[in-house]
Protein backbone atom coordinates (compact mmCIF):
# COMPACT_ATOMS: atom_id res chain seq x y z
CA UNK A 1 0.00 0.00 0.00
CA UNK A 2 2.81 2.35 0.89
CA UNK A 3 4.68 1.43 -2.27
CA UNK A 4 1.48 2.04 -4.24
CA UNK A 5 1.21 5.61 -2.99
CA UNK A 6 4.92 6.22 -3.54
CA UNK A 7 4.56 4.94 -7.11
CA UNK A 8 1.67 7.30 -7.75
CA UNK A 9 3.62 10.21 -6.32
CA UNK A 10 6.72 9.41 -8.40
CA UNK A 11 4.63 9.03 -11.56
CA UNK A 12 3.00 12.43 -11.14
CA UNK A 13 6.25 14.09 -10.14
CA UNK A 14 8.21 12.73 -13.08
CA UNK A 15 5.47 13.72 -15.51
CA UNK A 16 5.62 17.25 -14.16
CA UNK A 17 9.42 17.30 -14.46
CA UNK A 18 9.10 16.23 -18.08
CA UNK A 19 6.48 18.86 -18.73
CA UNK A 20 8.70 21.51 -17.22
CA UNK A 21 11.50 20.59 -19.60
CA UNK A 22 9.30 20.64 -22.68
CA UNK A 23 7.74 23.93 -21.61
CA UNK A 24 11.17 25.47 -21.30
CA UNK A 25 12.00 24.29 -24.80
CA UNK A 26 8.90 26.05 -26.10
CA UNK A 27 10.73 29.34 -25.61
CA UNK A 28 14.20 28.32 -26.71
CA UNK A 29 14.90 29.80 -30.16
CA UNK A 30 14.76 27.16 -32.82
CA UNK A 31 17.91 25.81 -34.42
CA UNK A 32 16.34 25.59 -37.87
CA UNK A 33 18.08 27.37 -40.74
CA UNK A 34 15.51 28.03 -43.44
CA UNK A 35 17.78 26.93 -46.22
CA UNK A 36 16.96 28.72 -49.46
CA UNK A 37 16.27 31.96 -47.60
CA UNK A 38 19.16 31.89 -45.19
CA UNK A 39 22.30 29.88 -45.80
CA UNK A 40 24.70 28.58 -43.22
CA UNK A 41 28.08 30.29 -43.37
CA UNK A 42 30.67 27.87 -44.67
CA UNK A 43 34.12 27.43 -43.13
CA UNK A 44 36.85 29.57 -44.62
CA UNK A 45 38.56 26.76 -46.51
CA UNK A 46 35.39 24.96 -47.57
CA UNK A 47 35.96 22.75 -50.60
CA UNK A 48 33.13 22.79 -53.08
CA UNK A 49 32.94 23.37 -56.81
CA UNK A 50 36.23 23.82 -58.65
CA UNK A 51 36.83 27.00 -60.56
CA UNK A 52 39.54 27.68 -63.13
CA UNK A 53 40.62 31.16 -64.04
CA UNK A 54 41.49 30.29 -67.63
CA UNK A 55 43.22 33.62 -68.27
CA UNK A 56 45.96 32.55 -65.88
CA UNK A 57 46.22 28.97 -67.05
CA UNK A 58 49.43 28.08 -68.84
CA UNK A 59 48.25 24.58 -69.74
CA UNK A 60 50.96 22.81 -67.75
CA UNK A 61 48.68 19.80 -67.07
CA UNK A 62 49.91 19.43 -63.48
CA UNK A 63 46.45 19.55 -61.96
CA UNK A 64 45.25 16.84 -64.30
CA UNK A 65 48.15 14.61 -63.29
CA UNK A 66 47.57 15.28 -59.59
CA UNK A 67 43.90 14.37 -59.75
CA UNK A 68 43.38 10.96 -58.13
CA UNK A 69 40.10 10.32 -59.96
CA UNK A 70 41.15 11.81 -63.32
CA UNK A 71 38.29 14.23 -63.53
CA UNK A 72 40.31 16.96 -65.22
CA UNK A 73 40.96 16.66 -68.96
CA UNK A 74 43.36 19.11 -70.54
CA UNK A 75 44.36 19.35 -74.18
CA UNK A 76 46.84 21.95 -75.38
CA UNK A 77 48.21 23.09 -78.71
CA UNK A 78 51.52 24.85 -79.08
CA UNK A 79 51.26 28.39 -80.27
CA UNK A 80 53.10 29.78 -83.28
CA UNK A 81 56.25 31.78 -82.46
CA UNK A 82 54.60 34.78 -84.07
CA UNK A 83 51.50 34.62 -81.86
CA UNK A 84 51.49 36.54 -78.57
CA UNK A 85 49.31 34.85 -75.94
CA UNK A 86 49.99 37.44 -73.29
CA UNK A 87 51.12 36.81 -69.77
CA UNK A 88 49.44 35.53 -66.63
CA UNK A 89 48.68 37.86 -63.76
CA UNK A 90 51.95 36.77 -62.18
CA UNK A 91 53.92 37.69 -65.26
CA UNK A 92 54.55 34.22 -66.68
CA UNK A 93 54.54 34.00 -70.43
CA UNK A 94 51.85 31.73 -71.88
CA UNK A 95 53.05 29.45 -74.65
CA UNK A 96 50.21 26.97 -75.11
CA UNK A 97 46.68 27.30 -76.38
CA UNK A 98 44.46 25.52 -73.87
CA UNK A 99 42.02 24.00 -76.32
CA UNK A 100 40.22 21.86 -73.76
CA UNK A 101 39.91 22.22 -70.01
CA UNK A 102 37.05 20.02 -68.81
CA UNK A 103 36.33 19.18 -65.21
CA UNK A 104 33.84 16.38 -64.65
CA UNK A 105 32.56 17.59 -61.29
CA UNK A 106 30.46 14.46 -60.85
CA UNK A 107 33.71 12.50 -60.56
CA UNK A 108 35.45 15.10 -58.37
CA UNK A 109 36.16 13.95 -54.82
CA UNK A 110 36.94 17.44 -53.51
CA UNK A 111 40.39 16.41 -52.30
CA UNK A 112 41.88 19.72 -53.40
CA UNK A 113 45.06 17.97 -54.64
CA UNK A 114 44.82 19.77 -57.97
CA UNK A 115 45.00 23.14 -56.26
CA UNK A 116 48.47 22.74 -54.71
CA UNK A 117 50.63 21.98 -57.76
CA UNK A 118 49.21 24.80 -59.90
CA UNK A 119 52.12 27.17 -60.63
CA UNK A 120 49.85 30.14 -61.36
CA UNK A 121 47.15 29.56 -58.69
CA UNK A 122 44.49 29.52 -61.36
CA UNK A 123 42.54 26.44 -60.20
CA UNK A 124 40.84 26.74 -56.86
CA UNK A 125 38.02 25.48 -54.68
CA UNK A 126 35.07 27.85 -54.35
CA UNK A 127 32.20 27.90 -51.87
CA UNK A 128 29.54 27.32 -54.54
CA UNK A 129 27.65 24.16 -53.68
CA UNK A 130 24.34 24.64 -55.50
CA UNK A 131 25.07 23.28 -58.97
CA UNK A 132 22.75 20.29 -59.31
CA UNK A 133 21.65 19.48 -62.85
CA UNK A 134 19.03 17.35 -64.54
CA UNK A 135 21.48 15.96 -67.09
CA UNK A 136 24.63 14.20 -65.98
CA UNK A 137 26.54 15.66 -68.93
CA UNK A 138 25.83 19.15 -67.66
CA UNK A 139 28.11 18.42 -64.73
CA UNK A 140 31.13 18.46 -67.04
CA UNK A 141 32.27 22.05 -66.85
CA UNK A 142 34.15 23.49 -69.80
CA UNK A 143 36.59 26.16 -68.77
CA UNK A 144 38.39 26.61 -72.06
CA UNK A 145 37.99 30.14 -73.42
CA UNK A 146 38.35 29.11 -77.06
CA UNK A 147 35.41 28.40 -79.30
CA UNK A 148 35.41 25.13 -81.31
CA UNK A 149 36.20 27.04 -84.52
CA UNK A 150 39.20 28.66 -82.87
CA UNK A 151 40.37 25.28 -81.64
CA UNK A 152 40.24 23.90 -85.17
CA UNK A 153 42.09 26.95 -86.39
CA UNK A 154 44.85 26.68 -83.78
CA UNK A 155 45.30 23.01 -84.49
CA UNK A 156 45.53 23.67 -88.20
CA UNK A 157 48.05 26.44 -87.56
CA UNK A 158 50.14 24.14 -85.43
CA UNK A 159 50.04 21.34 -87.99
CA UNK A 160 50.96 23.76 -90.73
CA UNK A 161 53.93 24.93 -88.67
CA UNK A 162 54.94 21.34 -87.99
CA UNK A 163 54.68 20.55 -91.65
CA UNK A 164 56.78 23.59 -92.52
CA UNK A 165 59.40 22.59 -89.96
CA UNK A 166 59.44 19.06 -91.27
CA UNK A 167 59.78 20.39 -94.78
CA UNK A 168 62.69 22.57 -93.69
CA UNK A 169 64.32 19.61 -91.96
CA UNK A 170 63.98 17.44 -95.01
CA UNK A 171 65.27 20.23 -97.24
CA UNK A 172 68.33 21.14 -95.14
CA UNK A 173 70.22 17.81 -95.26
CA UNK A 174 69.99 17.76 -99.03
CA UNK A 175 71.63 21.18 -99.17
CA UNK A 176 74.46 19.97 -96.95
CA UNK A 177 75.24 17.05 -99.18
Amino acid at each position, binding site marked *: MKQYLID*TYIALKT*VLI*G*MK*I*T*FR*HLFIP*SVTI*QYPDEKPSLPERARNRLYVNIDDCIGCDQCSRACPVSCITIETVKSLPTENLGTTSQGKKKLLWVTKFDIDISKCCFCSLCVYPCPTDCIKMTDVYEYSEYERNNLIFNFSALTPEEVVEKKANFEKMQAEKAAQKTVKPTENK
Partner: protein
Amino acid sequence: MYEIITNLFGNKVIAYSITALLPLLLFILPFAIVAVYLERKISAHMQDRLGPMRVGYHGILQTVADILKLIQKEDITAEGNDKFLFNLAPVLVFAGSYAVFAAIPFTSVYIGTNTDLGLFYIVAVSGIVVAGILMAGWASNNKYSLLGSMRSVAQIVSYEIPTALVILTIVMLSGTLNLNTLADIQTQYFWNWYIFGGPGLGIDKFLLLPFMIIGFIIIFISTLAEVNRTPFDIPEAESELVAGFHTEYSGMKFAMFFLAEYANMFAVSAIIVSIFFGGYHSPIGYLGNTIGFSWLVPIEQVFWFISKGMIFIFIQMWLRWTLPRLRVDQLMTLCWKYLIPYAFVNLIIVGLINLLK
Protein backbone atom coordinates in the same frame (compact mmCIF):
# COMPACT_ATOMS: atom_id res chain seq x y z
CA MET B 1 -31.44 31.15 -29.87
CA TYR B 2 -33.63 28.31 -31.03
CA GLU B 3 -36.78 30.43 -30.66
CA ILE B 4 -35.22 33.24 -32.68
CA ILE B 5 -34.42 30.91 -35.57
CA THR B 6 -37.89 29.33 -35.38
CA ASN B 7 -39.45 32.78 -35.64
CA LEU B 8 -37.13 33.72 -38.45
CA PHE B 9 -37.96 30.75 -40.69
CA GLY B 10 -41.36 29.84 -39.29
CA ASN B 11 -40.50 26.18 -39.53
CA LYS B 12 -39.32 23.93 -36.71
CA VAL B 13 -37.50 21.45 -38.96
CA ILE B 14 -35.39 24.15 -40.59
CA ALA B 15 -34.70 25.72 -37.22
CA TYR B 16 -33.58 22.37 -35.80
CA SER B 17 -31.35 21.70 -38.77
CA ILE B 18 -29.72 25.11 -38.49
CA THR B 19 -29.15 24.84 -34.75
CA ALA B 20 -27.71 21.39 -35.31
CA LEU B 21 -25.33 22.61 -38.02
CA LEU B 22 -24.20 25.75 -36.23
CA PRO B 23 -21.55 24.21 -33.98
CA LEU B 24 -20.12 22.27 -36.93
CA LEU B 25 -19.81 25.23 -39.25
CA LEU B 26 -19.08 27.90 -36.67
CA PHE B 27 -16.89 25.98 -34.36
CA ILE B 28 -15.66 22.48 -35.15
CA LEU B 29 -14.30 23.09 -38.65
CA PRO B 30 -12.46 26.33 -37.79
CA PHE B 31 -11.32 24.76 -34.55
CA ALA B 32 -9.90 21.72 -36.33
CA ILE B 33 -7.99 23.98 -38.72
CA VAL B 34 -6.57 26.05 -35.88
CA ALA B 35 -5.84 23.04 -33.70
CA VAL B 36 -3.92 21.16 -36.38
CA TYR B 37 -1.84 24.28 -37.00
CA LEU B 38 -1.28 24.75 -33.26
CA GLU B 39 -0.36 21.12 -32.83
CA ARG B 40 2.29 21.36 -35.51
CA LYS B 41 3.64 24.65 -34.24
CA ILE B 42 3.71 23.60 -30.59
CA SER B 43 5.36 20.29 -31.38
CA ALA B 44 7.91 22.08 -33.53
CA HIS B 45 8.79 24.68 -30.95
CA MET B 46 8.99 22.10 -28.18
CA GLN B 47 11.58 20.30 -30.27
CA ASP B 48 13.42 23.55 -31.09
CA ARG B 49 12.17 23.47 -34.68
CA LEU B 50 10.08 26.02 -36.55
CA GLY B 51 7.25 23.94 -38.00
CA PRO B 52 5.31 25.09 -41.06
CA MET B 53 6.74 28.38 -42.27
CA ARG B 54 6.01 28.49 -46.00
CA VAL B 55 2.28 28.90 -46.57
CA GLY B 56 1.30 32.36 -45.47
CA TYR B 57 2.83 34.26 -42.57
CA HIS B 58 4.58 31.66 -40.40
CA GLY B 59 2.68 28.94 -42.23
CA ILE B 60 -0.70 30.11 -41.00
CA LEU B 61 -2.51 28.77 -44.07
CA GLN B 62 -0.79 25.39 -43.95
CA THR B 63 -3.86 23.55 -42.69
CA VAL B 64 -6.07 25.15 -45.34
CA ALA B 65 -3.65 23.95 -47.98
CA ASP B 66 -3.64 20.49 -46.41
CA ILE B 67 -7.43 20.36 -46.51
CA LEU B 68 -7.44 21.39 -50.16
CA LYS B 69 -4.98 18.59 -50.83
CA LEU B 70 -7.10 16.06 -48.92
CA ILE B 71 -10.20 17.04 -50.91
CA GLN B 72 -8.38 16.42 -54.17
CA LYS B 73 -7.09 13.03 -53.14
CA GLU B 74 -8.40 9.82 -54.61
CA ASP B 75 -10.86 7.98 -52.41
CA ILE B 76 -9.40 4.49 -52.34
CA THR B 77 -11.40 1.47 -51.32
CA ALA B 78 -9.31 -1.67 -51.46
CA GLU B 79 -10.50 -4.96 -52.94
CA GLY B 80 -10.85 -6.87 -49.70
CA ASN B 81 -12.65 -4.14 -47.79
CA ASP B 82 -16.16 -4.56 -46.50
CA LYS B 83 -17.46 -1.64 -48.58
CA PHE B 84 -20.57 -0.80 -46.59
CA LEU B 85 -18.92 -0.80 -43.17
CA PHE B 86 -15.80 0.82 -44.58
CA ASN B 87 -17.82 3.80 -45.80
CA LEU B 88 -20.02 3.93 -42.74
CA ALA B 89 -17.23 3.92 -40.15
CA PRO B 90 -15.84 7.47 -40.60
CA VAL B 91 -19.35 8.87 -40.59
CA LEU B 92 -20.16 7.03 -37.39
CA VAL B 93 -16.95 8.12 -35.67
CA PHE B 94 -17.57 11.71 -36.62
CA ALA B 95 -21.25 11.52 -35.69
CA GLY B 96 -20.28 10.18 -32.28
CA SER B 97 -17.94 13.04 -31.52
CA TYR B 98 -20.27 15.57 -33.10
CA ALA B 99 -23.26 14.40 -31.08
CA VAL B 100 -21.39 15.31 -27.91
CA PHE B 101 -21.47 18.96 -29.00
CA ALA B 102 -25.27 18.94 -28.83
CA ALA B 103 -25.17 19.06 -25.05
CA ILE B 104 -22.15 21.32 -24.58
CA PRO B 105 -23.14 24.81 -23.48
CA PHE B 106 -21.07 27.42 -25.29
CA THR B 107 -23.06 30.26 -23.74
CA SER B 108 -26.12 30.59 -21.58
CA VAL B 109 -28.01 31.59 -24.73
CA TYR B 110 -27.00 28.88 -27.16
CA ILE B 111 -27.07 25.20 -26.29
CA GLY B 112 -27.88 22.54 -28.85
CA THR B 113 -30.19 20.75 -26.48
CA ASN B 114 -30.61 22.02 -22.95
CA THR B 115 -31.34 18.56 -21.66
CA ASP B 116 -31.43 17.61 -18.00
CA LEU B 117 -29.43 14.50 -18.84
CA GLY B 118 -26.54 16.45 -20.36
CA LEU B 119 -23.58 14.71 -18.72
CA PHE B 120 -25.20 11.29 -18.92
CA TYR B 121 -25.95 11.86 -22.58
CA ILE B 122 -22.35 12.86 -23.29
CA VAL B 123 -20.92 9.80 -21.55
CA ALA B 124 -23.40 7.56 -23.37
CA VAL B 125 -23.16 9.03 -26.85
CA SER B 126 -19.38 9.11 -26.93
CA GLY B 127 -19.62 5.32 -26.87
CA ILE B 128 -20.70 5.40 -30.52
CA VAL B 129 -17.11 6.29 -31.39
CA VAL B 130 -16.03 2.85 -30.14
CA ALA B 131 -18.39 1.15 -32.59
CA GLY B 132 -17.15 3.34 -35.43
CA ILE B 133 -13.49 2.64 -34.68
CA LEU B 134 -14.03 -1.11 -34.41
CA MET B 135 -16.01 -0.97 -37.66
CA ALA B 136 -13.20 0.88 -39.40
CA GLY B 137 -10.60 -1.61 -38.23
CA TRP B 138 -12.70 -4.63 -39.16
CA ALA B 139 -13.83 -3.35 -42.54
CA SER B 140 -10.26 -2.42 -43.52
CA ASN B 141 -9.41 -6.13 -43.68
CA ASN B 142 -5.90 -5.33 -42.50
CA LYS B 143 -4.25 -6.87 -39.49
CA TYR B 144 -2.75 -3.63 -38.23
CA SER B 145 -6.04 -1.79 -38.53
CA LEU B 146 -7.88 -4.49 -36.66
CA LEU B 147 -5.20 -4.63 -33.99
CA GLY B 148 -5.37 -0.86 -33.58
CA SER B 149 -9.12 -0.76 -33.35
CA MET B 150 -9.19 -3.62 -30.86
CA ARG B 151 -6.71 -1.79 -28.68
CA SER B 152 -8.75 1.36 -29.06
CA VAL B 153 -11.94 -0.34 -27.98
CA ALA B 154 -10.27 -1.93 -24.97
CA GLN B 155 -8.83 1.43 -24.03
CA ILE B 156 -11.94 3.54 -24.47
CA VAL B 157 -14.20 1.08 -22.69
CA SER B 158 -11.78 0.82 -19.74
CA TYR B 159 -11.20 4.52 -19.38
CA GLU B 160 -14.88 5.37 -19.48
CA ILE B 161 -15.11 4.00 -15.94
CA PRO B 162 -12.81 6.51 -14.16
CA THR B 163 -14.32 9.30 -16.27
CA ALA B 164 -17.81 8.32 -15.22
CA LEU B 165 -16.75 7.97 -11.58
CA VAL B 166 -15.31 11.47 -11.47
CA ILE B 167 -18.34 12.89 -13.25
CA LEU B 168 -20.42 11.09 -10.65
CA THR B 169 -18.47 12.83 -7.89
CA ILE B 170 -19.40 16.22 -9.30
CA VAL B 171 -22.97 15.19 -9.99
CA MET B 172 -23.24 14.09 -6.37
CA LEU B 173 -22.03 17.49 -5.18
CA SER B 174 -24.05 19.60 -7.55
CA GLY B 175 -27.15 17.46 -7.77
CA THR B 176 -27.60 18.03 -11.49
CA LEU B 177 -26.64 16.43 -14.79
CA ASN B 178 -27.54 19.53 -16.74
CA LEU B 179 -24.38 21.25 -17.97
CA ASN B 180 -26.11 24.61 -18.10
CA THR B 181 -27.19 24.39 -14.46
CA LEU B 182 -23.77 23.06 -13.56
CA ALA B 183 -22.19 26.15 -15.06
CA ASP B 184 -24.70 28.40 -13.31
CA ILE B 185 -23.83 26.86 -9.94
CA GLN B 186 -20.21 27.91 -10.43
CA THR B 187 -21.11 31.47 -11.33
CA GLN B 188 -19.05 34.52 -11.92
CA TYR B 189 -15.85 34.11 -9.95
CA PHE B 190 -13.19 31.50 -10.10
CA TRP B 191 -13.25 30.60 -6.42
CA ASN B 192 -16.71 29.20 -7.01
CA TRP B 193 -15.37 26.62 -9.45
CA TYR B 194 -15.57 22.98 -8.43
CA ILE B 195 -11.82 22.61 -8.80
CA PHE B 196 -11.56 24.99 -5.82
CA GLY B 197 -14.22 23.15 -3.83
CA GLY B 198 -17.38 24.55 -5.34
CA PRO B 199 -19.58 27.50 -4.40
CA GLY B 200 -20.01 28.58 -0.80
CA LEU B 201 -17.33 29.44 1.72
CA GLY B 202 -17.84 26.80 4.43
CA ILE B 203 -15.24 24.49 5.94
CA ASP B 204 -16.28 21.86 3.41
CA LYS B 205 -14.83 23.97 0.59
CA PHE B 206 -11.36 23.56 2.04
CA LEU B 207 -11.93 19.91 2.83
CA LEU B 208 -13.04 19.26 -0.73
CA LEU B 209 -10.19 21.13 -2.41
CA PRO B 210 -7.54 18.33 -2.47
CA PHE B 211 -10.08 15.73 -3.54
CA MET B 212 -11.32 17.95 -6.34
CA ILE B 213 -7.77 18.30 -7.62
CA ILE B 214 -7.32 14.52 -7.50
CA GLY B 215 -10.61 14.15 -9.35
CA PHE B 216 -9.47 16.64 -11.96
CA ILE B 217 -6.20 14.78 -12.53
CA ILE B 218 -8.05 11.48 -12.86
CA ILE B 219 -10.59 12.81 -15.34
CA PHE B 220 -7.90 14.57 -17.32
CA ILE B 221 -5.84 11.40 -17.69
CA SER B 222 -8.81 9.21 -18.49
CA THR B 223 -10.33 11.58 -21.05
CA LEU B 224 -6.90 11.86 -22.64
CA ALA B 225 -6.98 8.09 -23.03
CA GLU B 226 -10.53 8.18 -24.34
CA VAL B 227 -9.61 10.43 -27.24
CA ASN B 228 -6.55 8.29 -28.09
CA ARG B 229 -4.01 11.01 -27.56
CA THR B 230 -0.39 10.42 -26.63
CA PRO B 231 0.72 8.94 -24.21
CA PHE B 232 -2.33 6.73 -24.75
CA ASP B 233 -2.18 6.60 -28.53
CA ILE B 234 -1.53 2.88 -28.82
CA PRO B 235 -4.51 2.44 -31.19
CA GLU B 236 -2.77 4.56 -33.81
CA ALA B 237 0.81 4.00 -32.74
CA GLU B 238 2.76 5.03 -35.84
CA SER B 239 5.87 3.09 -35.01
CA GLU B 240 4.12 -0.24 -34.51
CA LEU B 241 0.75 -0.16 -36.31
CA VAL B 242 1.34 2.18 -39.28
CA ALA B 243 -1.64 4.39 -38.39
CA GLY B 244 -3.95 2.02 -36.56
CA PHE B 245 -7.59 1.88 -37.53
CA HIS B 246 -7.37 4.54 -40.25
CA THR B 247 -4.42 3.05 -42.14
CA GLU B 248 -6.56 2.11 -45.15
CA TYR B 249 -8.43 5.38 -45.38
CA SER B 250 -7.58 8.18 -47.76
CA GLY B 251 -8.91 11.53 -48.88
CA MET B 252 -12.02 12.88 -47.23
CA LYS B 253 -12.72 9.74 -45.21
CA PHE B 254 -9.37 10.13 -43.57
CA ALA B 255 -10.17 13.80 -43.03
CA MET B 256 -13.34 12.76 -41.23
CA PHE B 257 -11.32 10.69 -38.77
CA PHE B 258 -8.97 13.56 -38.32
CA LEU B 259 -11.81 16.00 -37.75
CA ALA B 260 -13.41 13.59 -35.29
CA GLU B 261 -10.16 13.33 -33.37
CA TYR B 262 -9.88 17.07 -32.95
CA ALA B 263 -13.59 17.50 -32.26
CA ASN B 264 -13.20 14.85 -29.56
CA MET B 265 -10.25 16.69 -28.09
CA PHE B 266 -12.35 19.78 -27.65
CA ALA B 267 -15.36 17.81 -26.46
CA VAL B 268 -13.47 16.27 -23.56
CA SER B 269 -11.85 19.59 -22.74
CA ALA B 270 -15.33 21.12 -22.72
CA ILE B 271 -16.54 18.45 -20.31
CA ILE B 272 -13.64 19.14 -17.96
CA VAL B 273 -14.25 22.87 -18.23
CA SER B 274 -17.97 22.44 -17.63
CA ILE B 275 -17.68 20.32 -14.54
CA PHE B 276 -14.53 21.69 -12.92
CA PHE B 277 -13.80 25.13 -14.30
CA GLY B 278 -17.10 26.96 -14.24
CA GLY B 279 -18.28 26.19 -17.77
CA TYR B 280 -18.87 29.26 -19.84
CA HIS B 281 -18.74 31.63 -16.90
CA SER B 282 -16.06 34.26 -16.66
CA PRO B 283 -13.56 33.85 -13.82
CA ILE B 284 -13.44 37.58 -13.09
CA GLY B 285 -16.92 38.92 -13.79
CA TYR B 286 -18.40 40.29 -16.98
CA LEU B 287 -17.47 43.48 -18.75
CA GLY B 288 -20.96 43.61 -20.27
CA ASN B 289 -22.60 43.69 -16.85
CA THR B 290 -20.19 46.35 -15.62
CA ILE B 291 -20.70 48.79 -18.45
CA GLY B 292 -24.34 47.94 -18.94
CA PHE B 293 -24.36 46.17 -22.32
CA SER B 294 -26.14 42.94 -21.50
CA TRP B 295 -25.82 41.69 -25.10
CA LEU B 296 -22.04 41.55 -24.59
CA VAL B 297 -22.34 38.85 -21.94
CA PRO B 298 -23.00 35.85 -24.25
CA ILE B 299 -20.08 36.86 -26.46
CA GLU B 300 -17.83 37.03 -23.43
CA GLN B 301 -19.15 33.65 -22.36
CA VAL B 302 -18.21 32.11 -25.71
CA PHE B 303 -14.80 33.68 -25.37
CA TRP B 304 -14.25 32.31 -21.88
CA PHE B 305 -15.55 28.86 -22.75
CA ILE B 306 -13.35 28.52 -25.81
CA SER B 307 -10.31 29.98 -24.02
CA LYS B 308 -10.65 27.55 -21.15
CA GLY B 309 -11.10 24.72 -23.63
CA MET B 310 -8.04 25.81 -25.57
CA ILE B 311 -5.94 25.76 -22.41
CA PHE B 312 -6.75 22.09 -21.99
CA ILE B 313 -6.12 21.45 -25.68
CA PHE B 314 -2.72 23.04 -25.16
CA ILE B 315 -2.02 20.83 -22.14
CA GLN B 316 -3.01 17.79 -24.21
CA MET B 317 -0.58 18.79 -26.93
CA TRP B 318 2.06 19.63 -24.36
CA LEU B 319 1.75 16.15 -22.86
CA ARG B 320 1.89 14.61 -26.31
CA TRP B 321 5.35 15.99 -26.90
CA THR B 322 6.54 15.18 -23.40
CA LEU B 323 5.60 11.59 -22.67
CA PRO B 324 6.40 8.42 -24.60
CA ARG B 325 3.67 5.96 -25.49
CA LEU B 326 2.50 3.45 -22.90
CA ARG B 327 2.55 -0.28 -23.48
CA VAL B 328 -0.80 -2.09 -23.57
CA ASP B 329 -0.25 -3.67 -20.17
CA GLN B 330 0.90 -0.37 -18.67
CA LEU B 331 -2.19 1.27 -20.08
CA MET B 332 -4.48 -1.26 -18.46
CA THR B 333 -2.48 -1.15 -15.21
CA LEU B 334 -2.87 2.60 -15.04
CA CYS B 335 -6.59 2.40 -15.58
CA TRP B 336 -7.63 -0.59 -13.46
CA LYS B 337 -5.01 -0.51 -10.73
CA TYR B 338 -4.56 3.22 -10.23
CA LEU B 339 -7.24 5.46 -11.68
CA ILE B 340 -10.31 3.42 -10.78
CA PRO B 341 -9.32 2.78 -7.13
CA TYR B 342 -8.37 6.41 -6.67
CA ALA B 343 -11.59 7.55 -8.32
CA PHE B 344 -13.59 5.24 -6.07
CA VAL B 345 -11.90 6.40 -2.88
CA ASN B 346 -12.32 9.96 -4.05
CA LEU B 347 -15.99 9.38 -4.69
CA ILE B 348 -16.53 7.92 -1.20
CA ILE B 349 -14.61 10.69 0.57
CA VAL B 350 -16.38 13.44 -1.33
CA GLY B 351 -19.68 11.71 -0.56
CA LEU B 352 -18.83 11.62 3.15
CA ILE B 353 -17.83 15.28 3.20
CA ASN B 354 -21.00 16.13 1.36
CA LEU B 355 -23.05 14.15 3.87
CA LEU B 356 -21.40 15.52 7.00
CA LYS B 357 -21.12 19.17 6.11
